[in-house]
Every structure is written in structure tokens, then in C-alpha cells.
């Protein structure tokens, strides 16, 4: 086998190839589910081949077949000239593989995890120390060798997972969504490590990702949709085809970008709408900005053409679902009478004053003061372990504060927690639905928990069916719903009792780009209707949809303000158009000094509950 391979040139040698791969999973009482439908592709040594696609596109299935974990129903996958089914053991001794959950033993320390994989992969004893040193330096984990893997932050776990996959220098590295749920700083570091390896060892890397900006870092991109390969090529080829179709729309008068965004979303001739750097990025079906002008209907706006990205290409490549989401003028998330009952004594929907949360000696949240105004979308951002979730739980009254004051919907959370809870809706990270109950039963349950009965309950459930398109799914068990619909159901459940304030904890993690776009469109709609939204996310570009945001790190405020204010913090001669990611990384790495943060907040935004 190896002789055959050596005949090829080092640069273009194919290390992974799939020919007509079909993979079907049996479904009880139904025709089998076809996860892969005739996929043919190739990946070369010394290159990073990216596999992008929405949830359920078949990315993980394809990588698992390549790793010998699954056998294709028909077709063949060849790795390093070896058949993935017949020679799986031989393949497994020559590749590195990092599954989505990293494959680390939580009870074992960093070094013990590395030693385990070195033993399993048969790394000779005399080579080990050198290998460990190199991997630990590369992943910057040298200081943490005795720490248990379970106590590492998400980004560190991911780097350790990568180090374990690399402990015996592999010829091919398979990475299954390695950056899911990891903050931008860690994501950047991981890509740096991967490229170092590719350049130094000339290995072939095959990586699946849900982050479209990462596709641009790959040498080759494969777009997978519903088990079929839609396109293949270097990222530049994808962006070249999009020239003249991407525009930035900026509001000329008092109109908020969000309002323009809502107007353009789902209009004819427009493929994709997002808010980026304070402007509405719009992708048209054909070259030319005609559809944008039609949709704006004479509203004052400045339209500039923009350089296309891979994400624009991806969104126009994937066939869209029919019946795009529109906000109904008649249906309302919160009825008028509920909106009127907002406490007038306090101008803020949510406010905290010098909030602390101690876990033993460890301060998870330190001196946090901020305010969220009524009808505002407020983002809580920060790297893993920054204290976002702790803050969030305190705001919802799930965790008592160690000291400081929290007011939610005009109620002091220390004294009248139950009263405050009636006015807030909460959607937890894991969606907290009852998997065995169907959609209707879930809604009825959550409605009754909040005291809705009879006609009122029926009226709200009807609203949820219309608003979220859940009607046709009402008899389906919650666990069997597709990811996007689970999220819709969770949100509907949180909104049934017409809360004034909606708390959303990482609502878009593990949801594909389509569902994410739809989600933000809907959140916008609710905000327009007067619902206050507090949301955490680790997708920095999503921060653009927020009116204001708070960036946390190590339990403290790093920066607070509008997206423009935050971006301006890192604006410089080298970086005239910073993105949210740039701002975040600048803040996290300490390149932006705290005093400039404070002044940015003061200049850019009115006082947000700070005293």
C-alpha cells in the first residue's frame, strides 16, 4: 500500500477519498433515513479540507465513516490507500481523530490523558517526553499538566483533545466540529495549531465545521447539504461567484439597523440578511441592488456594495425552505394590557447594583452593575467561564446573589422572587422540554405551570402554533423534533404567559445558520412589540443584533455599550473596519485598556444602571 502512495507527489497526494458513499440508518416502521446520498470527494496531504453544512447535512456521519466507526451502506471510503471497513485497525493506528465531545477523561489530569493516548497509540517510551513537551507548548497547556481535564475551560479541553489526537504524529487528522461552543480566542488558537502542523508535518486535515467564517481558513471547502455534495473548491472560487450581489445597507436617519433588517428579511430576490458592524448585510439572488430598493420602499438608506464572503456564497447555495418567516402584525407576543403593567417606579426592566457571587473563596461574579431598558435586546457575552451563566441564573432568581441588588420587572429579586418570575420567561440552554410529551402537551404543561387555564390557555397555544409554525407538529414528541423546531418550541413555552422580560441562555448554540437567522428575526419582532430580551451567546457576530451588550471576563465587566461603541474600542489604522470578533479578542487579550472601556460606555450610551 505505502509503495503505491509514495509514487504520488507530496503536495497533491490524495489521502482521503470517497466514492459514491451512501449511508442509511434504519428507522423503526419507516423507510431508512439516508444521511449520505452518493458522496464522492477527495482530500489531499498538506491541505486543510473543510466540510461545511447545516445540521443534519451528514458531516459527522462522513467523518465517522472515514474513521472506521461506521460502515457505509454502499460505496467506499479510502484513507491512505486503505479501505475504511476492511483495514479499519490499520487506519486507526495512522490517523488522529477528535470527536465532538473531545474524548477526554474528566477524572484524569492533562498529563494522564496524554499518557493514556500515548499508551493506546503505542508511542515509544523514549520519544514521549519530547512529544509531550512539543504538544504542551503548542497548546499552551504546560502550566496545567496536573489539572484534571474536567476542571479545564472549554477552550483548554478542546486543545487537550487535539493534543491527544496528535500524540502519535498522525498522517491524517480528522476533526469533527472541533470549535463548537468555544470562544473566538480559543477558536483562533486552534486554527493556528492546525496550520502549524500542516506546514511542518505535511499532514492532511479533514475538518467539519458549522462556523462559516472558518470555512474561509480552509484550503478546500466541501459544501454538504442533506447528504449530497453541493459544491467543492477553494473558498475564493465561492466568493468570486458572489461579486456584485452583496450590499451593506446603512440607515440614513433615525431608523435602527434592526428595522431595516426586519423589512428586508424574507423579501423577494433577497437570499440573506444579517446585521454586521452596525449595517445590514444583504445578499441578492442576482447581481444588482434592485430588490433592496424595492423592499425599502423609499425609506432613507445608504446602499454600498461589499466584498462577498464564503458565508454569503453558502447561504445562496443552499436551497431555502419555502414560506420564510414573516412577523404577523396581528399576533402579538405580549398583549396590550400586560405591556401597560410595567412598573413605573423603575425605568429599567432589569438592573443590578454591585452584584457579587462567591463560590467559597472564588468570586464567580465581581462588582457587576448594569441596567437593561424596556424593549431592549441586551447581550451578555464573554469567553467560557467568564461568569455569564452565573449572572444569568441570578437574574432569573435561580441562584441567590452573595451581595448586591437585583431588580427585575420592578421587583426586588431578594424579596419577591415569585412575583418577578411571573413576569419573566426563561429559556435554558438545553431547552428543558419534556422529550416524551408531544408539542401540544409540552405547551399545555408550561402554560398551566404559569397559571394559564381554559380559554386563555387555548388562546396562547393557538398563538404559539401560528407564531412558530408548530401547528403541524403538535402530535410529535419533543425529542423527535428537528433542532430548529425544538428551539421554537422552547421559546414558545417561555413566552406563553406573556412575560415582559425574556431570558435566553445560549439559545443558538448547536443550531445551524438557518435556524439562527430565523431566531434573530423573531427576537427582533418581539423587541419591536416591547418585550425586553436578555440573551447570552458565544457567537460574536450575533452581538450585532443586540441594542447593547455587556462583555464579561473572569466575573468582571470588560466593556459595555452598543455594538458600535464596542467595535470602536479596537478601531485603529491597521484595523479600520473591526468586527465583533476583533473587538472581543482585543478585549480578552487586554489590548484595550479598561479606562477606555469606561469612557466608551459613557460616551456611547446613556448610563445603564451604573451609579
Amino acid at each position, binding site marked *: 500500500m505505502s509503495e503505491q502512495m509514495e509514487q504520488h507527489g507530496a503536495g497533491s497526494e490524495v489521502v482521503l477519498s470517497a466514492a459514491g458513499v451512501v449511508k442509511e440508518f434504519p428507522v423503526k416502521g419507516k423507510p431508512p433515513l439516508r444521511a449520505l446520498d452518493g458522496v464522492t470527494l477527495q482530500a489531499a496531504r498538506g491541505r486543510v479540507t473543510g466540510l461545511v453544512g447545516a445540521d443534519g447535512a451528514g458531516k459527522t456521519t462522513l467523518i465517522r465513516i472515514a474513521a472506521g466507526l461506521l460502515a457505509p451502506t454502499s460505496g467506499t471510503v479510502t484513507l491512505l490507500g486503505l479501505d475504511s471497513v476492511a483495514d479499519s485497525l490499520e487506519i486507526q493506528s495512522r490517523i488522529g481523530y477528535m470527536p465532538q465531545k473531545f474524548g477526554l477523561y474528566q477524572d484524569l489530569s492533562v498529563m494522564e490523558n496524554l499518557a493514556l493516548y500515548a499508551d493506546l497509540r503505542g508511542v515509544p517510551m523514549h520519544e514521549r517526553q519530547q512529544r509531550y513537551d512539543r504538544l504542551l507548548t503548542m497548546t499552551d497547556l504546560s502550566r496545567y499538566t496536573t489539572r484534571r481535564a474536567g476542571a479545564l475551560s472549554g477552550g483548554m479541553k478542546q486543545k487537550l*483533545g487535539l493534543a491527544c489526537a496528535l500524540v502519535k504524529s498522525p498522517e491524517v487528522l480528522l476533526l469533527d466540529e472541533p470549535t463548537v461552543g468555544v470562544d473566538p480566542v480559543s477558536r483562533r488558537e486552534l486554527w493556528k495549531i492546525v496550520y502549524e502542523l500542516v506546514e511542518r508535518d505535511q499532514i492532511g486535515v479533514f475538518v467539519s465545521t458549522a462556523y462559516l467564517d472558518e470555512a474561509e481558513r480552509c484550503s478546500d471547502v466541501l459544501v454538504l447539504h442533506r447528504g449530497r455534495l453541493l459544491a467543492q473548491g477553494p473558498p475564493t472560487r465561492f466568493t468570486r461567484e458572489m461579486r456584485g450581489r452583496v450590499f451593506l445597507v446603512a440607515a440614513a436617519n433615525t431608523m435602527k439597523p434592526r428595522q431595516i433588517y426586519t423589512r428586508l428579511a424574507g423579501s423577494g430576490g433577497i437570499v440573506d440578511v444579517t446585521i454586521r458592524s452596525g449595517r445590514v448585510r444583504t445578499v441578492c439572488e442576482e447581481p444588482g441592488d434592485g430588490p433592496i430598493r424595492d423592499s425599502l420602499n423609499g425609506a432613507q438608506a445608504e446602499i454600498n456594495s461589499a466584498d462577498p464572503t464564503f458565508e454569503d456564497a453558502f447561504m445562496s447555495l443552499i436551497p431555502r425552505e419555502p414560506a420564510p418567516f414573516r412577523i404577523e402584525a396581528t399576533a402579538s407576543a405580549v398583549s396590550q394590557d400586560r405591556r401597560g403593567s410595567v412598573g413605573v417606579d423603575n425605568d429599567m426592566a432589569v438592573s443590578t447594583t454591585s452584584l457579587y457571587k462567591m463560590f467559597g473563596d472564588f468570586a464567580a461574579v465581581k462588582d457587576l452593575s448594569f441596567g437593561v431598558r424596556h424593549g431592549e435586546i441586551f447581550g451578555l457575552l464573554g469567553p467560557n467561564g467568564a461568569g455569564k451563566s452565573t449572572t444569568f441564573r441570578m437574574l432569573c432568581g435561580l441562584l441567590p446573589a452573595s451581595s448586591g441588588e437585583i431588580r427585575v420587572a420592578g421587583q426586588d429579586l431578594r424579596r419577591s422572587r415569585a412575583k418577578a418570575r411571573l413576569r419573566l420567561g426563561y429559556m435554558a440552554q438545553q431547552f428543558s422540554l419534556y422529550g416524551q410529551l408531544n408539542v401540544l402537551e409540552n405547551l399545555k404543561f408550561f402554560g398551566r405551570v404559569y397559571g394559564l387555564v381554559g380559554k386563555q390557555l387555548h388562546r396562547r397555544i393557538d398563538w404559539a402554533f401560528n407564531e412558530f409554525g408548530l401547528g403541524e407538529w403538535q402530535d410529535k414528541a419533543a425529542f423527535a423534533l428537528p433542532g430548529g423546531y425544538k428551539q421554537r418550541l422552547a421559546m414558545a413555552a417561555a413566552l406563553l404567559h406573556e412575560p415582559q422580560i425574556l431570558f435566553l441562555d445560549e439559545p443558538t448554540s448547536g443550531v445551524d445558520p438557518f435556524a439562527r437567522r430565523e431566531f434573530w428575526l423573531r427576537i427582533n419582532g418581539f423587541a419591536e412589540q416591547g418585550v425586553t430580551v436578555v440573551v447570552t451567546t458565544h457567537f460574536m457576530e450575533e452581538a450585532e443584533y443586540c441594542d447593547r451588550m455587556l462583555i464579561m471576563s473572569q466575573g468582571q465587566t470588560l466593556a459595555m455599550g452598543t455594538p458600535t461603541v464596542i467595535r470602536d474600542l479596537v478601531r485603529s489604522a491597521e484595523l479600520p473596519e473591526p468586527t465583533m470578533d476583533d473587538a472581543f479578542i482585543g478585549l480578552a487579550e487586554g489590548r484595550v485598556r479598561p479606562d477606555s472601556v469606561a469612557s466608551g460606555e459613557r460616551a456611547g450610551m446613556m448610563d445603564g444602571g451604573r451609579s
Partner: protein
Amino acid sequence: MTRFLMRLRGFLRKEALQIVRDPSSIVLALVMPMVLLVIFGYGVNLDAEYVPVAVVNDDHGVMSRDLVARFELSRNFHVYHARSMEQARQMIQLRDVDAIVRVQNDFSARLQGAATPPDQAPVQLIVNGIDANRARLIEGYVKNIAGTWTAVRIAYGQAAARQAVSVQQRIWFNEGAESRDFMIPGLITLIMTLTGILLTALVIAREWERGTMEAMLVTPLRKMDILLGKILPYYFLGMLGMGMSVVVGVAIFDVPFRGSFAALFLLSSLFMLASLGFGLFISAAIRIQFVAAQVSIVAGFLPAFFLSGLIFDLESTPTAIRVVSHIVPARYFVTISHTLFMAGDLWTVLLPNALVLAGMAIFFLALAFRKIAKRLE
């Protein structure tokens, strides 16, 4: 070092570290057996002690007082003196006592042959029959006391030789008729079944849940490595728990141990391997810890509990159930442990049971080996 030994060393070291750092396996293997043994050892005592009885003595002679004194001295009874039968009846209705012993007014006279015909000197016994087992026990104790008393009297030449209450009891092996001596070895079997199956059933399912199994499979690890790596650590842990149970049984509950420790070690190893193999098969087939635990209880522990002959006498069960009981490994080990504890190394009894257990251990381990997959499907 060969590749195989290196892989095995890595795997075993990982399991050992996990056992030490995640207390759940230690709790399961060492703490739970002790707790169960103490609860069952003290709580499930089939002997009746200090049974409250009402004694109505209508005969006021020396003989009858002597008989009543026997009841008072026995640790099986706690005697309440009732003045009349009426009062005694009230006591039994209020459940203050479980039985009434009535000595009739002509007791002394009859014993001395004064009454005609001079045959029996009956003692009336009335037992609350709601708990039939307990009633039978009380009946036995009363007969026993009456018999002993009569025997003593005869020995002194006081009573008529022809008396009726002559219950002759002889119990083998469990001389003290201590149900505890019978229960503790059986309990050790049950505990080993539970821990053996649960230990392995949970550990692989846990790896599936945490996503570590997927990473393990994409290493050069062979199926045999996984089998050995999972069986060996939990075999040692399980045997340690077993050893502790035996020590506690002998030291705290005074259960006799008449066999050899070598035989116990050998035979319980066979049983432990069968349990571990069964657990490993469950966890290779079911990848969710919660379900694996439930299946272990239903398919492993409950059959051992009901069909091992420990709680229910298999001789008195319907034929169908007796046939089914032959596939329960615990059945064979209950016989083995009873023999080792109470009789000694009787190889005529031990050997056939040991052979069956060995066969079962091989069967379950082979089944587990087949079921361990290097693929996700």
C-alpha cells in the same frame, strides 16, 4: 514492551485512576455491600426473639409455676401474666401479645395421675395466625419448651413416663437453628451479583455517555484489550468487596466458616467473572447508564433474589420455575457458599456447581466479547 501490553497498561491505569477518583465505583463495590449486609444481617432476622405471650395460669401448683418459669427464662418469649382468659383475649386482640399459653386448673392433678384417665396434662396454646410463618415459629418454640420441661421432669422421675408432649427435634448444620447462619452466605451471593453486574454495566455505558468511547474506538485498541481492561480492575474491586463481606459475616455476625479460603477464592472468582461478563454484555448492548442500571436490576439482581433458593425454597416452587432457576448463576453460588460456610469443602457438592459457574462465566464473557464493537452501529 509489546504494543499489546502497552495498550493494556494504559487502559488499566486509566481505569484504576477513574476508580480512585470517581467515588461511585468504590461506593458500589465496597460501601454498598457493607450497608446491605448490616441492614439485612440485623433487619432480616427470621428468628423470633422475645415474642410477647400472655400466660394464663389457672393451676397454681408448683409444677405449673415451674413450667411458666421456663417460658420466662427463654429468650424466645417475653411473658405477660394475665389473670384470666378474658384479659388474655383482650391482649391478643389489641396485638399486645402474639400468643396465649394457658395452663389449665387440673394441670398438676393430671400430671400426678390423680385425674382419671391419668394420661395428658395439656397446655393450651392460642396463636395469632395472621402471620402464618410467625405462628408456626411460635408453635415450635412452645412445643420445644414444653418438651424440654417434660424431659427434665422425667429425668427427675417426677412426672408420669407416659406423657404426650414429646417433640423430638434435631437440626443439622444450623444447630442453633440460627437463620442468620443461613442468610449471610446467601446475602453475600446477592451482593456479589448486584455489584458484579452493576460495576461493569455502568462503566462502559458511562463512556458512551461522556463520548470517550468514540475516541477509544478510533485508537489501535483491540476488542480483547477492551474486554481485559474492563474486566480486570472490576474483578479485583468486586473480590475486595466480597472479601470484606465474608470478614464482616464471620467477625460481626458470628457466622461459622468451615471451608477453606482457597476454595472460596477460586469458586467466588468464577461467580464474579460470570456476573462481570453479564454486566459487560449489558453495557455493550445498552449505552445509557440509567437503562443499563435498570436492566441489571431486572435481568440480573431480581432473578438472583427470587430464584437462587435463598428466599424461596426451590423444592416447593412449580416445576416451570424450578427449571428456569437453572439459568440463574446465583443459584449455584448460593449452594456453594452455604456448603463452604456451614459444611466445609465438600467437593462432591462444590464441583458440579463450580463447573456450571465456569461454563456460565465463559458464556457471558464470550457474549460480551462478541457484543463489544469497534463500530458505532
